[in-house]
């Protein structure tokens, strides 16, 4: 790169962190021995938590449905190992707060006995609706980390008449190589899954975007896609956050998704490569989503690499499998840019986790935050064109509405701003804090409205009851009067009167 290019060809967005992907990406995929115990969380997806349908003490087979979806947007949960349900309770969630959430604990019998699987020889003979139904039943959610139920996206794609399926093989987060490994080892499965998804949403072409720092994956996918001209492999520049759907869409198609709109509105739908492979497994072989590839990486890991592991496996077991050089200073689920710090190692692996990082003290060191020198690096790095410096200053002063006016809601929490900040200001935390507070405020407003409705309903009820009481009293009075009149009439003993009353 010449000096002229260095000075004038500054990219419009994003950052270029050290990717730390190798050597982990080049190590062959390993399979985790069946863990003794798994905790299968009920909420591993966007939407309503699944409802358990098994009892403590019940025997389950691998792939058996153990919790069913609740509500329109939800996903079922299946047993990742065969064995006995030993508890339905709370376990620590992979969440920064370290709070707990519901999970089903299964003691493994190490038999790996699968449920009976229904295989389909030709998925393309199935109707798109049928594929959508089976995808939903297999509990498939966005495996890139978004964890949105995939079947709901299929229906949306059909409804919006999407023309292009974008397959996200960007994997722009440093350290992670789960998708890279997936494409290298199971390229054929991925391409088959891509074609099934295209069939399900009615797209005419699929663009597979792969960052150019993964040449082996690009080669493998090109080979796998030979003979399928509708599946196009498109290398994209390696730049974080290329794997963010909006950035990948504009890079591959030039279409810009309007703010507050979904990608389907510009005619595209984005699915991760691992999600496509999961769809292939679910449709061809009837296998629900109970296992995934996860990258185990970080300075504290002795033998970093990718592991094929049952979902629900405690993170510590995965780390022990790869070996630890030292006690990690921080464990992160996901990548370093957007990942979640874990409270401890007994947190279960979830569907959307593509990596577990055990960071050593050097990697986990957080330099103390200094004053903002207004260098503007954050503004240049923001892939959404926001002004992190301005929003952060407002949030710091407690002016959350001011930050919202600068479109804080458009922030994707990618972490570019905080990454480039020479003063190490925790901008993402400011934004997360403000988003939470604004959301709580919105919730409070809704609550006040609900209270108003309830109070009105009560007043209506009281009035209705009073009216009913009055009516009842009046009726009783009338009845009494009628009875009196009847008695008086009976005293006159006229048969015609009695007949008239009966009629």
């Amino acid at each position, binding site marked *: 790169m010449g000096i002229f290019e260095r000075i004038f060809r500054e990219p419009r967005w994003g950052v270029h962190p050290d990717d730390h992907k190798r050597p982990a990406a080049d190590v062959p995929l390993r399979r985790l021995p069946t863990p003794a115990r798994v905790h299968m969380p009920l*909420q591993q997806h966007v939407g309503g938590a699944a409802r358990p349908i098994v009892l403590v003490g019940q025997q389950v087979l691998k792939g058996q449905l153990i919790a069913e979806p609740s509500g329109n947007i939800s996903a079922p949960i299946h047993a990742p190992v065969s064995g006995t349900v030993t508890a339905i309770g709370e376990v620590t*969630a992979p*969440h*920064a*707060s370290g*709070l707990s*959430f519901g999970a089903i604990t299964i003691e493994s019998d190490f038999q790996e006995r699968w449920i009976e699987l229904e295989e389909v020889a030709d998925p393309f003979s199935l109707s798109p609706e049928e594929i959508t139904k089976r995808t939903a039943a297999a509990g498939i959610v966005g495996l890139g980390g978004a964890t949105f139920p995939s079947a709901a996206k299929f229906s949306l794609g059909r409804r919006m008449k999407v023309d292009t399926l974008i397959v996200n093989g960007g994997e722009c987060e440093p350290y992670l190589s789960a998708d890279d490994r997936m494409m290298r080892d199971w390229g054929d499965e991925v391409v088959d899954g891509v074609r099934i998804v295209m069939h399900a949403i009615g797209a005419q072409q699929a663009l597979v975007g792969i960052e150019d720092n993964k040449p082996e994956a690009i080669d493998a996918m090109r080979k796998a896609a030979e003979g399928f001209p509708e599946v196009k492999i498109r290398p994209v520049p390696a730049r974080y956050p290329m794997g963010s759907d909006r950035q990948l869409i504009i890079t591959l198609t030039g279409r810009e998704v309007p703010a507050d709109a979904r990608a389907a509105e510009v005619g595209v739908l984005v699915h991760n490569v691992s999600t496509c492979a999961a769809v292939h497994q679910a449709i061809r072989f009837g296998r629900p989503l109970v296992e995934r590839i996860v990258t185990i990486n970080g300075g504290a890991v002795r033998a970093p690499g990718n592991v094929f592991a049952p979902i629900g496996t405690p993170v510590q077991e995965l780390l022990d499998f790869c070996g630890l050089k030292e006690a990690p200073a921080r464990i992160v689920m996901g990548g370093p840019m957007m990942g979640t710090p874990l409270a401890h190692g007994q947190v279960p692996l979830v569907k959307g986790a593509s990596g577990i990082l055990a960071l050593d003290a050097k990697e986990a060191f957080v330099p*103390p*935050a*200094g*004053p903002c020198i207004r260098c503007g690096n954050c503004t240049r790095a923001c892939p959404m064109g926001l002004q992190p410096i301005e929003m952060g200053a407002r*949030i*710091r002063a407690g002016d959350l509405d001011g930050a919202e006016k600068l479109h804080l809601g458009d922030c994707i929490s990618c972490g570019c701003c905080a990454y480039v900040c020479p003063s190490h*200001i*925790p901008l993402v*935390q*400011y934004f*997360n*804090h403000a988003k*939470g*507070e604004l*959301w*709580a*405020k*919105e*919730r*409070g*407003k809704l*609550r*006040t409205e*609900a*209270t*108003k409705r*309830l*109070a*009105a*309903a*009560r007043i209506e*009820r009281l009035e209705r009851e009073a009216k009913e009481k009055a009516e009842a009293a009046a009726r009783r009075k009338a009845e009494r009067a009628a009875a009196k009149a009847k008695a008086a009439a009976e005293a006159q003993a006229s048969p015609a009167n009695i007949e008239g009353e009966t009629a």
Partner: protein
Amino acid sequence: MLSAVGSLTVMGVTLGGLLGVASRYLAVEANPIEAEIQAMLPGSQCGQCGFVGCSQAAAALAAGTAPVTLCPPGGRALAQELAHKLGVKADLSGVADDGPKIAQVSEEICIGCCKCIKACPTDAVIGAAKQIHNVIRDACTGCGACVDRCPTEAMALVPIPVSLQYWIWPKPVMAGAAA
């Protein structure tokens, strides 16, 4: 010089007179903001603010004799909105501390007297005579009207437990940095 002084005086007197007349004849009967504030309040007439009902509280708010933080069921969000509406600065220190609360029945002590059911402004307590009562979480505003009414002190306000859905990232603390 004199003409300038004279013309300004005449203008002042005329315009002042006009304003006086206008203020008398075009006076607004009720304070319109009062109705707007009443619409913002929960309307459950729980009486926790010390006023008989929400309309009285709205009147006091409009007159500026009551603080914007008066409504516990409305919480912080309402206090902020009221402050914004009235153009005052809300002192949120009082409401921010303990967070929202809801009523809870101690099942061992409840005698099933139904008094709390009658007191609840949002019909959040369910139960029948001689049956242990229970509180519907989503309907309870935490107003505490039932607590005063309970003869056995079985009713208490407890903070809503923090769950994953309600957890909020704390604001970063910047030590030693310039403001």
